[in-house]
Every structure is written in C-alpha cells, then in structure tokens.
C-alpha cells in the first residue's frame, strides 16, 4: 500500500537530511506496524481454525480485541500518513520505491529480533533481492 497516488501536490526540497528523515519515519512506522500486527496474529493463532470453530464473527472479534493488533494498525496508519506527507515534499519517484523497498529489509531485521523468526541465509538473500527488485520495478 505504498504506491503514490496522483491528485496530491508535490514540492521538491533539496535538503538531503530532511529527505532521509522523512523516509526513515515512513520506514520505522511501517516496520513497527508490520511487526506488531504479525505478533498479534501469532498470538491469536491460526485464523482459519478459529473461523472454523467460532465463525467469521468470532475470528473478527479475536483480531479486533487483541491490543497488539490495535497498536499495529495505529502504526500502519501513522506510516500511511507519513508517506503522504513525504510524497508531498519529496520527489514522487524516490519516496514511494525507497520506503517500500527499505521496509522489506528492516522487517527482516525486526522479524529476527522481535518475533524471533528463523531468518536464515535464504530469507536474508530474499529480503535483499526483493528490496532491490521492488526499487527497480517501482522506480
């Protein structure tokens, strides 16, 4: 959900530190949101099974009553608005692809540290390859 939408107004600023800080804010908020959401879903358990037991309502309630999920969604919303802010100030072809691709690598790091996921060599390689690939494809 990080593609830029036309219809917004773009300005070019040339202070590279400010640019980097804006992209960093998007990446950090987005990573925090993804990790909290993933932690929430892991703590809840297999949604397909919960739905089979207690129906769609039960599954939705299990998700919506999880504090980790609400925290995750808040950060994802913050990431979305900071992306809109960045798009308003940065070059369109830089902010979108840069934040989308960097998030993949920061998520791999955060997944290993906070979610204790087994990020082996295959997954590191994938994170880096997909990161470069997304940048090239979206640029």
């Amino acid at each position: 959900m990080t593609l830029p939408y036309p219809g917004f107004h773009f300005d070019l600023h040339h202070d590279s530190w400010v640019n980097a800080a804006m992209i960093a804010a998007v990446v950090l908020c987005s990573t925090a949101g993804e990790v909290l959401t993933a932690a929430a879903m892991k703590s809840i358990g297999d949604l397909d099974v919960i739905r089979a037991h207690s129906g769609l309502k039960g599954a939705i309630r299990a998700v919506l009553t999880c504090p980790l999920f609400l925290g995750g969604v808040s950060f994802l919303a913050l990431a979305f608005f900071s992306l809109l802010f960045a798009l308003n100030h940065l070059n369109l072809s830089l902010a979108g692809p840069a934040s989308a691709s960097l998030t993949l690598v920061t998520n791999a790091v955060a997944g290993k540290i906070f979610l204790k996921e087994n990020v082996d060599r295959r997954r590191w390689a994938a994170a880096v390859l997909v990161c470069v690939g997304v940048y090239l494809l979206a640029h």
Partner: protein
Amino acid sequence: MVHHTLSPRQYLILGLVAVSAPLGDSCLKRGMAAMPPISLAHPGALIAAVFTPWIALGIVLLIGFFASYLTALSWADLTFVLPATAFGNVIIALLSRFWLHEAISLERWAGIVLITIGVGFVAQGPPMTKKPVHEILEIEERAIAASALGEWPEPASHIDRELPR
C-alpha cells in the same frame, strides 16, 4: 502450530495477498488520476472521491488484501509473507505487459527477475518458525482460559505439539 507445507487454500490466500494489494493500488491510482487536484483545504472532495467507482473498488480490494494478509500472518512468518506480497508487483507488471501491451524497461525487467528469485528462495523454506514448547503451551493455556470465558468454544486443539522426550 507447525506447518511445513501449505494447503491449496493457504496458497490461494497468499495469491490473494499478492494480487489484491497492487490491483487495489492501481484502482486508487486510476480513480485519483481522473479527479481534479485535491487540496487539504477542501476535505469534502476527498470524501466524495471515496464513492467514485474506481476508488470504491480499490478500497474493497485493499480491505480484501488486509483480511487475507492477516490470515496469512496467523500461520506464516512475516519474513515469509512479505516477499509474497512483493511478488504481486511482478504479476501486475507481467499482466500489463502481456494483456495491456505496455512496454517494460530493462530496469523493470531486472526488478522482476530479482523479486522472482527472492520469492523462490523464501518459498523453498518452511513458512513458519518452530516455536519452543513452552511458548506453544503458553498459547494453549491462554486459549483454554479464553474458551472457559466463552470467548472461543474449544481450546486451541489445532496446535501441533512437539513434546520434549
């Protein structure tokens, strides 16, 4: 909960995750491009935009994306699901090449190849990291407590336990 292979249904959900996000984004893009420039001084125009067909379709697709994304995260690692999400961009790029006959630059072809190789790497491994036994037991205890409160009808008997010998 330890799955080493995915069921066809789970592949379907991963496919939905991959395709619905870029399709939803494209719909929003198309809808917004057809609108006159919107400024924050007139927020009413943004609300009106929500009810135009392309933007409404985009929002429905993105809600579908989020639902399937959450479902996927409940049985797979974040570092497994995210590359799958990125693979959607490849599918959309290829669709626009062969269906809409849009040109793809060399740079974008390189991106497509890199993402495909990356996703191939991840897909070879297990989707979910094995949890230590004490964590599995904790989750099960919480599920039993929740079911005692009537929140869930049954304890989380779906958790495949690997008890220490």
